[in-house]
C-alpha cells in the first residue's frame, strides 16, 4: 500500500429514488493533492461523496470509479473502507452503548490481518495523542459513539477517526458546518497534520472559509450534478469575493440546482 493512491471518477451518473442527481461527473484525485468541491446547496455535492463510499440509497447508473485501477463500484462499503477510502460525514450516526474507543479499535482491527491486531496499550497511546491534537477531552474515549455529541463534537470525532484509520483517500463532507472559528482551526490543523504523498483529500464545502485553513491545490465548482468549472486556489478566492453568479452568467445557467437544467 505504499503506492501513491489514485482515485479516478469518470462520467459518473447517480440516481436516488429514480431521480438522476449526478449527470456525468469527472474527477481525479492523487496522493498528495487536496481538492475542494464547492457549490451552492442542491447541486449534488453530498451525493458524490455518498456514492463514492457506496451508500445503498444511491444508485450508480453509469460511469466508473476506480482506486488504483480497481473497480470501486464492485466493492461493498466495508471493502471500500479497507482499501483506503474514508468519508467524514456531515451527519454521522449515533450508536448507543458502543464506546468511541471500542468502535475505533474494532475499525482499526478490521483492517488488520488476523493475529496482527493492534495492542490495547498501543491503541490507547495513539488515541491519546490524536485526541490531544484535536483538543478533545479524554472522556470522549468512553462516551457512546456520537450519542449526545454536539455538532462540533461529531465533526471532531470524524476527524479523529480519520487520523486513526490512516485512509488513502479522505473525503470530508461539509466538515466545517456547525463549527465555530476556533474549532474550525483545530479540525483543519488535524487534517493538515495528516497531509502526505500517501493521502489524497477531497474537501466538500459551500463556504470558502474552510479553505483558508485547509489549502486546496484544485478547486472545482459543482452545479446541476456536474463539475462546471475547475481551477487553482485563486478560484476559491474569486468565489469568496464575487459569489457564484458570474459562473452562472458565464455558463448560461439560470438555476444551479439539480433538475433545473434547460
Amino acid at each position, binding site marked *: 500500500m505504499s503506492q501513491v493512491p489514485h482515485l479516478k471518477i469518470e462520467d459518473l451518473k447517480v440516481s436516488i429514488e429514480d431521480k438522476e442527481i449526478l449527470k456525468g461527473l469527472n474527477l481525479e484525485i492523487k496522493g498528495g493533492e487536496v481538492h475542494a468541491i464547492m457549490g451552492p446547496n442542491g447541486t449534488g455535492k453530498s451525493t458524490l461523496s455518498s456514492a463514492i*463510499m*457506496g*451508500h*445503498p*440509497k444511491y444508485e450508480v447508473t453509469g460511469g466508473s470509479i476506480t482506486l488504483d485501477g480497481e473497480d470501486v463500484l464492485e466493492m*461493498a*462499503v*466495508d471493502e*471500500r*473502507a*479497507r482499501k483506503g477510502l*474514508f*468519508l467524514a*460525514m456531515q451527519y*454521522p*450516526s449515533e*450508536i*448507543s*452503548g*458502543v464506546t468511541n474507543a471500542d*468502535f475505533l479499535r*474494532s*475499525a482499526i482491527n*478490521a*483492517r488488520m490481518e488476523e493475529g496482527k491486531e493492534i495492542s490495547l496499550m498501543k491503541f490507547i497511546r495513539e488515541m491519546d495523542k490524536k485526541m490531544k491534537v484535536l483538543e478533545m477531552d479524554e472522556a470522549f474515549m468512553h462516551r*457512546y*459513539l456520537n450519542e449526545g455529541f454536539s455538532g462540533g463534537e461529531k465533526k471532531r470525532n470524524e476527524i479523529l*477517526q480519520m487520523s486513526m*484509520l490512516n485512509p488513502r483517500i479522505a473525503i470530508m463532507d461539509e466538515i466545517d458546518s456547525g463549527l465555530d472559528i476556533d474549532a474550525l482551526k483545530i479540525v483543519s490543523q488535524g487534517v493538515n497534520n495528516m497531509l502526505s504523498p500517501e493521502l489524497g483529500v477531497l474537501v466538500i464545502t459551500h463556504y470558502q472559509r474552510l479553505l483558508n485553513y485547509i489549502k486546496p491545490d484544485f478547486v472545482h465548482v459543482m452545479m446541476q450534478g456536474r463539475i462546471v468549472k475547475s481551477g487553482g486556489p485563486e478560484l476559491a478566492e474569486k468565489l469568496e469575493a464575487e459569489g457564484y453568479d458570474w459562473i452562472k452568467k458565464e455558463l448560461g445557467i439560470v438555476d444551479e440546482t439539480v433538475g433545473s437544467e434547460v
Partner: protein
Amino acid sequence: MAKKAPELSEYQYGFHDKDVSVFRTKKGLTKEIVEEISRMKDEPEWMLEYRLKALDIFYKKPMPNWGGELKDLDFDSITYYVKPSEKQGKTWEEVPAEIKATFDKLGIPEAEQKFLAGVSAQYESEVVYHSMQEDLEKLGILFTDMDSAVREYPDIVKEYFGTVIPAADNKFAALNSAVWSGGSFIYVPKGVKCEQPLQAYFRINSENMGQFERTLIIADEDSFVHYVEGCTAPIYSTDSLHSAVVEIIVKERARCRYTTIQNWSVNVYNLVTKRAIAYADATMEWIDGNIGSKLTMKYPAVVMVGPRAKGVVISIAVAGKGMHQHAGAKMVHMAPDCSSTIVSKSMSKHGGKVTYMGLSKFGRNAQGSKSNIKCDTLILDDISTSDTIPYNEILNDNVTLEHEATVSKVSEEQLFYLMSRGLTEDEATQMIVMGFIEPFTKELPMEYAVEMNRLIKFEMEGSIG
C-alpha cells in the same frame, strides 16, 4: 417407594443425561408422586403438608390465558422428579466434543464446564467450594441447596418459605410448591455484607438445575448479598417444563442483587415466578437475562412495603425462531417515597416474538413514590415481532410515573456508517446489538459480561441455540 419402581430411561438429548443413572418418578402428577418426592428427600411433615395443599391448588387453578400460548403444554407428559445419582458420575472424556467446543467458544473456564456437563466429583471445584463455605460460615452466612436447608435450618425455612409467593399465587407457583426440588437457600445475618457474589455453580453435588427449583434468600437488616445464578451455556434439557419460584426478603436497609442469565433450548416452557419484598430503605435489584425457550413467562417483582424502599429490574429478552419471550417486571409501591426503575431490552430475530408486560402499582400510602420505566425493543428482521403491554394501577395522586418505550430496527444509516469504517455487515450489526444490550451487560460481573457478549455474537451468527 416399592409401588413406584424407578425407571432407568433412555435419553435422546445428548450428553446431559446419557450415562447418569437416575431415579425418576413416573410421568404425570399425582398425590402419590408428591408424597414420594417428599419421602425421598426425607422431609419433615409440614413440608409434605405444604406440598399436598399446593397440589390441590394446582389442580383447581385454571391455566393463565393472558400471556403466551400454553395449549401445547401437557402436564401428564412431564416427569416431575428426577434424582441424579450421586455416586455415578461420568468422566470429562465422555462429554461430546461439540459440547466442549461450544463451552470453549463461550470461554467458560474448564472447572465450570465440567460442572455444566454433569461431570461430578471434580476435585478443584470442591476445594474452591469448601474454602468458600468456610469463609461464609465465619460471617454467619448460610448458603446451601434448598433441600438441605429444609432439614438443616427448619426454623428459618418455615418462617419464610411461601410467604412472598404463596402456593395460591398462580398455577405455576402452586405446581412448584407441590413438586419443588433443588434451588438455593441463603440467609445473610444482620449487618453482614457479603462482598463476593454467591454463585450457584459452586454448589456442586447438589441438585442445582432442577426443573422446579425453589430459591429462598433472606437478607437481614443492613446486610448485602449478590447472588448469581445460571450461566450463558445453552441448557440442554430433555424436560419441556421449567417452573421455578424465587422468593427474596430484603429487610430494613439491606440490599440484595439477584443476577440470572438463562439460555434455554427451544423445546422448553420457562414459567417462573420471582418476587421480593423490600422493607424500609431496602433495595432489591433483579438483573435478568432470558435467551431461548419455546415460551418464557417471567416478571420479576419487587413489593416495596416500607418507606423509601427501592426496586430495580434490568432485563434482556432474546427470541429467535420458534421462541416467545413474554417477560417484564412488576413494581408494587405500598409505602411513601418508594422508587423503582425498570430497564427492559428485548430483541427478536428469525421470526421470534418478544412481549413486554409490566405492572407499576402505587398503593394508597405510596405518596411521594416514583417509577421510571424504559422498554426498548430491537427487531432484527422483517418477520420478527414485538409488543409492549404496560399496566398502571395508581391509588395515590401524589406519585410520579414515567414510561418510555421504543421499537427500532438496525438502521441502514447506522450500518452504512459502521461499514464505511471497515466493519463487515455482520460485525456492524453485532456492534449495534451489543450496544443495544449494553445497559444490561454492564450490570453483570465481568466474567459473565464477557460470556454474555460472546453468546450474543454466536446467537447473531445463528451457530448456537
